[in-house]
């Protein structure tokens, strides 16, 4: 095999094996930064040896063996040299000698889950959580993360180094949180994954407004987490939401790269396999029972759109009801505005306008262009053209997106013509 091919294969093996390897090593040395360094050592050894010796039959086991050996060497050294590690080192060396390490292999799923919770630990900044999760669980290289977020590689590398140091300094335990802490910690994990997804789905930086590779990364993380925590309904809720949203990726841009709104999308271009996967994940969440969480509600709303063959078939009454439930869970004027749209679609613009009017006194929506845009739409449909035009012009002045501004002004101008 040519050296370049071998290197690409090593990259692939690394992506597949590094999360498990780092998880196993973290359990041994109780420090994720150290564990990653040891794993990197094992990778370097592979990069040195495999191009000559060929890739071993079981590359994962090979890397793990090297990593463990390095860990044991290191622990033996620190046992002698550093009192801080003394107790830990002795325990681990004894454990190895009594073959407990073999038993650890059976627990790899738990170790991986512990690693997920460490990478998304609240002691870290959101940015650091994202980078560390992609690196440790997604198996992405620093360069890949940097490319995905259009950030210099040195910045990401430094972010990861700092994050690992923070975790060490905070002595974050290698465990799956229990009790009162668990829900908050889990929602931090879900937030990180959905953030990665959204960065791909509606990129905040760069020329493209979508970066599908990041959506894939997030989906993969979500799918992994769903199998690690099959009893957590909200994990399936998040997976369902991402699968269904990702099903529309192909339909979300027109021929010149412009955004195509949901109701105008060519539904024949929606990915039916992802929709089916999303609906299955949603059913899994619902089957587990309990009160749905915010992701499950959003997934249920997305599912209403996914099930409608034509935009006209959309079950707006159900969507409105779901928004009402979601708003009870996380009260937000933006959700309320969405509910107004669903109500208008289901029961007519007058009903929607009642809600939208109420939102005008909301401080949080001041300067938010979608409120006047939505009101303008309702008013136009009700034949109140003067008021509608004023609202659409106001929305146009508020939006930062040039294309959207053009659309709003165009609509306002047409209303003037109808008078």
């Amino acid at each position, binding site marked *: 095999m040519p050296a370049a091919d071998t290197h690409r294969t090593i990259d692939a093996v690394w992506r597949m094996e590094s999360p498990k390897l780092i998880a196993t090593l973290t359990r041994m040395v109780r420090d994720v930064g150290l564990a990653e360094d040891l794993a990197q050592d094992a990778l370097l050894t592979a990069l040195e040896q495999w191009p000559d010796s060929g890739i071993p039959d079981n590359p994962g086991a090979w890397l793990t063996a090297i990593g463990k050996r390095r860990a044991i060497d290191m622990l033996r050294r620190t046992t002698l040299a550093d009192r801080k590690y003394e107790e830990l080192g002795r325990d681990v060396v004894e454990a190895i000698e009594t073959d407990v390490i073999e038993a650890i292999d059976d627990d790899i799923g738990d170790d991986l889950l512990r690693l997920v919770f460490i990478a998304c630990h609240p002691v870290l900044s959101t940015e650091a959580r994202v980078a560390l999760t992609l690196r440790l669980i997604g198996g992405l290289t620093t360069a890949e993360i940097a490319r995905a977020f259009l950030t210099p590689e040195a910045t990401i590398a430094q972010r990861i180094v700092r994050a690992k140091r923070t975790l060490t300094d905070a002595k974050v335990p290698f465990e799956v949180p229990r009790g009162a802490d668990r829900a908050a910690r889990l929602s931090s994990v879900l937030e990180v994954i959905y953030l990665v997804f959204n960065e791909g789905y509606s990129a905040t930086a760069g020329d493209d407004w979508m970066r*599908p590779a990041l959506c894939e990364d997030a989906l993969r993380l979500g799918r992994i987490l769903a*199998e690690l925590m099959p009893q957590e309904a909200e994990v399936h809720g998040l997976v369902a939401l991402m699968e269904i949203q990702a099903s529309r990726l192909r339909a979300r841009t027109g021929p010149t790269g412009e955004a195509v709104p949901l109701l105008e999308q060519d539904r024949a271009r929606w990915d039916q396999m992802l929709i089916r996967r999303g609906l299955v994940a949603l059913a899994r969440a619902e089957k587990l029972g309990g009160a749905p969480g915010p992701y499950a509600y959003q997934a249920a709303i997305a599912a209403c759109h996914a099930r409608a063959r034509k935009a006209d078939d959309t079950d707006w009454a159900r969507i409105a009801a779901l928004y009402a439930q979601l708003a009870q869970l996380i009260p937000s004027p933006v959700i309320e505005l969405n509910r107004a749209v669903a109500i208008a679609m289901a029961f007519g613009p007058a009903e929607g306008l009642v809600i939208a009017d109420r939102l005008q006194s909301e401080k949080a929506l001041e300067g938010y262009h979608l409120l006047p845009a939505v009101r303008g739409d309702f008013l136009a449909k009700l034949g109140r053209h003067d008021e509608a035009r004023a609202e659409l012009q106001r929305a146009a002045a508020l939006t930062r997106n040039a294309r959207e501004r053009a659309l709003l002004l165009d609509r306002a101008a047409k209303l003037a013509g109808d008078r």
Partner: protein
Amino acid sequence: MRFMVMVKASKDSEAGVMPSEELLTEMGRYNEELIKAGVMLAGEGLHPSSKGVRVQFDGNDRKVIDGPFTETKELVAGFWLFECKSKEEAIEWVKRAPNPMPGSVGEIEIRQVFEDSDFGDLVDKVPEVFENERKFREQVAKKNG
């Protein structure tokens, strides 16, 4: 990127011999590994070609040909759909699969699935192709709707 991973048929699979319990267990374990890694999007096993048909296109003619078909090694007995970062990753996953055709030389073929970005240039050059396709679909939808 997505890959279609196709298990090629064997004499046994074409004869309708069901996989052994051992193989089924191993396959189950392998599938579980794929799912846990978030790699497997779909996967199915297929009936032998004796239950299949081919539709042959010749100009405007359509001819239905009943199975079985002879070129066993070219036939597909089952498939997975993977989502991976690279072809190399797909290869590494496939190498870990149990031999799907024990007792004979099994073969699994890996093919990359086309994505929109593969048509990138085409979309830029002839947007009307896609535009027309959409219009056509709209017309069909209207007619049916």
